[in-house]
């Protein structure tokens, strides 16, 4: 299965990319497993570990590490919001 991943704000800058389409190995079925899969790339991807209070949304709804991820999902990682 494949997902569309988005990165925002300081995390986007640290990773140097705004989005990617990614084919996932079979053992990745949740946000937490996707997160671990990305962190395992090493280097700049440590930003996914070091971003304080990292937030995630699945299909534009706030989600948690245990939230399931399915084929075609849009998954976004970002720091706590600071609008308003």
């Amino acid at each position, binding site marked *: 299965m494949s997902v569309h991943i*988005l990165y*925002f*704000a*300081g995390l*986007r800058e640290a990773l140097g990319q705004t989005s990617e389409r990614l084919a996932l190995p079979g053992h990745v079925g949740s946000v937490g497993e996707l997160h671990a899969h990305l962190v395992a790339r090493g280097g700049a991807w440590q930003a996914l570990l070091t971003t304080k*209070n990292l937030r995630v*949304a699945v299909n*534009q709804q*706030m989600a948690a590490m245990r939230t399931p991820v399915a084929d075609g999902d849009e998954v*976004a990682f*970002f*720091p*706590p*919001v*600071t*609008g*308003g």
Partner: protein
Amino acid sequence: MKISVQSEDFDLGAECAAISRGRKDIGAVASFVGLVRDANDGAGVARMTLEHYAGMTEKSLAEIVEEARGRWEVMDATVIHRVGELQPGDNIVLVVVASAHRGDAFAACEFIMDFLKTRAPFWKKEETPEGGRWVDARESDDRAAEKWKE
């Protein structure tokens, strides 16, 4: 209900007038405008860039307004949030809530702002004399949103 995420400025007077025009059942209109300050966390701010998660922002704002409508008597509401580059003194965000009674209008307006601050996917980057910096989320904003759980 009107929700807008836009780079253009907004007009508080026009938005409030649009909400109450032709109606005689509205007794209270509470509104809030947030503006860019030229100083934040001890540093001067020369300008600010507002990034957002297009698509999710509108959805998130609409959900926050819906939640307010479930809690209070809200006759109409408008939320406008600007994105892109802004200068000190510029408008950032507008929330207008119309109700029959003032208590409902005030509570719903403040609730929408508190939840917008902690839930809507916008991020501020400030340009200071020391360079650009992403604004840190404030614990006081989390506490402000928490108080509505009582």
